[in-house]
């Protein structure tokens, strides 16, 4: 049987759980999943070997993988990754890597796949305003949106082969600049609570932060909030010209739901909207819509969450 290669998603020096979703996607493409783990410490590959439905694991070991560099990672992975169709996660780093690796192999890349039906792959286009289905002839690399495919579940236990590799780093890391707050980034969080112009003032974002701290969420913002208030940095902006987010839960507070904002968050699994205007477009996309001012709703939400979290 042919092999389908999965590039493990690496976050904070470990194999990220979304890798088990990539294994499901590889099965949907029809092929034995081989997981390649970019690492400097091959012991992290054990987590990939524990995923059910994996036929074998290649721990690609190199000090190149200590810091991300697209050229270095693509060359080091290319050297040890078998030929065939490759699946990676549609995170910003892995999309970049997938594009470089595909170009290196002279094959095409299809990003942000949300559905696999035999040889047909579906991805959102025009920021989710339409869907495009394509078919492949020949090998390709595809990236799969996190939180879309079910994680491959059950017991795994495949062998890990450690293979040394090396690559040509093109860029050099000068400095890591930690965020001023401990809070999660919107692009990394499973729950995002965002405020818009309806919050009235940047000072009122403390109410969003309090809820975020209670439930482990990141705080985001609309462009109107970012553009109006200097205290709300662009890094918090969700949408067409901000970050694309795909969390399990997105809570929009005082956000009207402009098309460019929806572009960044409409694929969230659950959407809650709090807005005082019952006709705000955001309500058409909300699973749970609360027509109320944030002044009324947020204290109630905060205390309900607080009592749940114990």
């Amino acid at each position, binding site marked *: 049987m042919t092999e389908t290669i999965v590039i493990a998603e690496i976050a904070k020096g470990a194999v990220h759980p979304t890798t088990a979703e990539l294994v499901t996607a590889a099965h949907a493409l029809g092929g034995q999943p081989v997981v390649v783990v970019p690492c400097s410490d091959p012991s992290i590959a054990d987590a990939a070997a524990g995923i059910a439905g994996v036929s074998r694991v290649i721990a690609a070991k190199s000090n190149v993988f200590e810091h991300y560099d697209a050229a270095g990672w693509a060359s080091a992975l290319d050297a040890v990754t078998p030929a065939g169709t490759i699946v990676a996660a549609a995170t910003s780093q892995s999309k970049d890597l997938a*594009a*470089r690796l595909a170009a290196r192999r002279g094959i*095409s890349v299809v990003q942000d796949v949300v559905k696999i039906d035999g040889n047909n792959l579906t991805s959102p286009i025009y920021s989710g305003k339409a869907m495009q*289905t394509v078919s492949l002839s020949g090998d390709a690399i595809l990236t799969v949106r996190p939180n879309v495919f079910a994680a491959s579940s059950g017991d795994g236990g495949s062998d890990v082969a450690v293979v040394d590799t090396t690559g040509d780093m093109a860029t050099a890391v*000068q400095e890591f600049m930690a965020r001023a707050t401990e809070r999660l980034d919107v692009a990394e969080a499973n729950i995002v609570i965002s405020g818009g112009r309806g919050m009235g003032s940047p000072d009122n974002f403390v109410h969003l932060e309090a809820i975020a701290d209670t439930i482990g969420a990141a705080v985001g913002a609309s462009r109107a909030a970012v553009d109006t208030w200097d205290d709300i940095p662009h890094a918090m902006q969700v949408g*067409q010209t901000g970050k694309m987010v795909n969390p399990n839960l997105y809570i929009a507070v005082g956000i009207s739901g402009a098309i460019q904002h929806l572009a960044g968050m409409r694929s969230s699994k659950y959407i809650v909207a709090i807005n005082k205007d019952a006709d705000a477009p955001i309500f058409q996309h909300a699973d749970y819509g609360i027509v109320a001012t944030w002044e009324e*709703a*947020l204290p109630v939400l905060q205390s309900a969450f607080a009592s*749940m979290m114990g």
Partner: protein
Amino acid sequence: MPNIVVLVKQVPDTNARIVVNGDRVDLSAVKKVMSPYDEFAVEVALQHREAAGGEVTALTVGGSGADKVLKDAKAIGVDSIVRIDCEDTLDSNALQNVLSSVVAELGAEVVYCGKSAADTGAGSTGPGLAERLGWASVSNAINVSFGGEITAEIPSTGGATRYAVPMPAVISCDKGGLKVRKPNVKGIMQAKKAQVDVRSVNHPASSVTVVNHTMPPAKPAGKSYEGGAAASEVAQLLRDEANVI
């Protein structure tokens, strides 16, 4: 003095309603504009020229209708405008193939592009082009600065990482704190007169074929509540029904 290229793509206005007719998106009634991130790429390219001298060439792949985005780039301040004449829909492999041959012909040392195009949303072109040219690349760059080498900040887990990027390089640009300049009257006049350098290049066959376009699956109507007190019920449902808390 660097020879700078900036990639610009024509896309439907992000405010436009997208309709599917039969099994293809119908863009006949849609206004077309420069892809929003390409505006940032143009701005960074112009800042690079201001810091280091050199010339900026805007490059697009498209039919004659795409001359409009080149003229827009010219009005903002690029020096020359080049279109690779191609009406076909290209997959990433074919697109990067034609781009890399013309970027090489132009003798560029640095290419700026958008972090993703507003139509594809892919973000493949910058890194893929760099790989074909054997150049360095960074994606989603903000706070780009130009000394002997280029430095750029890239968001990473827990913050951002500043990279030194040796030229030649491809840099795909995010917004960050950038403010883009608007065309002035002189620029608009110059753009009217500017000649587009049209080139034709053979491209490899695409291995990715579009099967169809569809509208996104309609979301079932959600539950709606009046008044802030309902937030408590919603919190319960998020835990018990949606299982997300």
